[in-house]
């Protein structure tokens, strides 16, 4: 532990790498023991984590509000879908890179008029973008497949993985687990990138632009370029997350990325903690298991899940949580660390003073 700590102060990138690898391995280990349903939920959560990482970077670090990330997700997913439609046998990694590039490109297009805007104008501009994506996908049916959408080939589990995995219903379980593991590894890689980006020169410049753009400009930071870069990176992450999400579900339709998804993303990011890496992961985990959580709450309160109220419980709980978080704990779950640490430190100090007595 001490070695890790000293490593952290000297070789920060290496330490970050070790931490991410350990965390990813831990989650991979866990997937071996989860039922297939939980595995596929986890896969969706990993995809959403990638999107939230980008959103957290954009809102938390560059201070630009975006409600358009579901639109960027749709761009990435459709780029992957259209490519897979014509070129069946492309390796998955190529599809993902393509989705990132197309997502980044759409981010650039939106950023050019948007970076001159602030606060509510920006929120509305990006909102209008994500509202316009669904009609676009519905309209150009020859490319996007219209309402029916596009289909991906089912992910095939490699044989070595199936051998490694021995269960009663081996193929179904192995497929779900392979999907989850793949998604978790991709999320781990993107987490590592974002962790480095947060602490890079660009990341520091971004924070200065957020806190005091005049000072940033005086330091020689190119404001429009920095703001545009924030959008492009967030959109690339969202594009990849969208493509991963579509590949996991093996389909992409206009209704996969509704306007409300942007709101869900924002909720998850705020709940996890704006502008924190761990917050994005917490958000992804909440997304994965929100259905279980809601049915648990339904069971606790005795609400019939098939009733009208039960079906809308998720919206009510999440909306209320979002409001309460913003009003009373704006730093989210990740931000709770600080008061807890302060409390433990206080207790320790209390203990030592008692010992002295």
């Amino acid at each position, binding site marked *: 532990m001490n070695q890790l700590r000293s490593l952290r102060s000297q070789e920060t990138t290496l330490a970050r790498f070790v931490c991410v690898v350990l965390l990813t391995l831990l989650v991979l280990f866990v997937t071996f023991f989860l039922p297939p349903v939980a595995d596929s939920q986890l896969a969706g959560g990993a995809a959403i984590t990638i999107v939230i990482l980008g959103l957290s970077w954009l*809102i938390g670090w560059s201070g630009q*509000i975006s*409600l358009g990330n579901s639109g960027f997700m749709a761009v990435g997913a459709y780029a992957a879908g259209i490519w897979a439609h014509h070129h069946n046998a492309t390796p998955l990694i190529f599809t993902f890179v393509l989705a990132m590039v197309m997502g980044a490109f759409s981010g650039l297009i939106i950023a050019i*008029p948007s970076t*001159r*805007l602030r*606060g*509510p*104008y920006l*929120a*509305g*501009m990006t*909102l*209008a*973008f994500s*509202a*316009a994506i669904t*009609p*676009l996908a*519905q*309209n150009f049916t020859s490319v996007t497949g219209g309402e029916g959408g596009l289909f991906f080939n089912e992910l095939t589990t490699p044989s070595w993985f199936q051998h490694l995995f021995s269960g009663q219903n081996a193929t179904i379980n192995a497929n779900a687990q392979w999907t989850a593991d793949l998604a978790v590894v991709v999320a781990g890689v993107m987490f590592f990138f974002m962790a480095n980006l947060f602490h890079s020169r660009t990341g520091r410049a971004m924070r200065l632009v957020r806190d005091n753009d*005049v000072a940033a400009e005086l330091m020689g930071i190119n404001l429009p370029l920095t703001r545009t870069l924030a959008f492009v990176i967030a959109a690339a992450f969202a594009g990849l997350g969208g493509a991963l999400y579509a590949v996991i579900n093996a389909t992409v339709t206009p209704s996969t990325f509704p*306007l*409300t998804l942007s*709101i869900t993303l*924002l*909720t998850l990011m*705020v709940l996890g903690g*704006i502008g924190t890496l761990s917050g994005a992961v917490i958000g992804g985990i909440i997304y994965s298991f929100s259905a279980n959580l809601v049915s648990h709450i339904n069971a606790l309160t005795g609400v019939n899940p098939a009733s*009208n*109220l039960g*079906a*809308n*419980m*998720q*919206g*009510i709980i*999440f*909306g*209320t*949580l*979002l*409001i309460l978080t*913003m*009003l009373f704990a*704006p730093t989210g779950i990740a931000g709770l660390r600080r008061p807890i640490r302060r409390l433990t430190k206080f207790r320790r100090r209390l203990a030592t003073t008692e010992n002295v007595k």
Partner: protein
Amino acid sequence: MANFLASQFMHNIFSGLAQGVLYSLIALSLVIIWQSTHVLNFAQGAMAMFATYLGMTEIDRGVGYWWCVIISVIAGVIFGGLAERVLIRPLYGKPEINPIVVMIGFLGVIEAVATAIWTSTTRNITSPFSQIYFHANGQVILLSPFVIFQIILAIVIMLLVAALFRFTKLGLQLRASALAPEVARLLGVRVNRMLTIGWMLSAGVGAVAAVIIASGTFGLFPTNMDGIFVAGFIAAAVGGLESPIGAIAGGLLIGLAEQFILSYWSATLAPLGGLLILVVALMIRPQGIFTKAVGRRV
């Protein structure tokens, strides 16, 4: 004349204007809130929808249409005041993302609660005005008594709001507390109360728009205001968020643009019209077309 009124061009003008006045009303209500508290209320449409449900379901109990309208508007006004007091007041002076996020959360709660109570099926409300289009020499003119009522009511509401701000003592106090809160407070204006009244007024205007929309062919369902809110916001942003005239003009512009795209290009692409107008308008003048550019003090 009848031929001209029944032409495709005039069809588009009539439908565009009818839709545009609704966008204008929503845009106007957003501008009122923006002027008084510098908050963009993302739950504006949903709050109006909920108020409309509260009033309009009274029809089932045999209450007359106009009483239901009044109940809806009063519910909207109370709702607006409560939202400002409970949700927005603790957030003054915080980063501008905080009220936006809170109102987005509120939007989610309202829509979920409305779906839980009234289900997501569309409810059609019979208004006292006919929806059947006029005819002239056997040709259809895209105007019905209801559409005329819709346009006239919207104009009346806009004039009332304008008169309130321009000619009454309350309007003067509202403008004063928006423009210079400290000075207004020193001169004896209860600024906090003015902020609440601004929200109540805005929610009332929004409720009127929602009632008209619910009574028309669009019907009432829990998410029926989503698209209209986006269009109304775009209208307000094109006008500059500060200017009521700009909001109204922006609303009409968006309504007409959507109608012409729908007519000459594609029905599904109509929502793109708003986005295109917004991009072009913001590229030319990032602070909106109808507002003076304000230099930021360093």
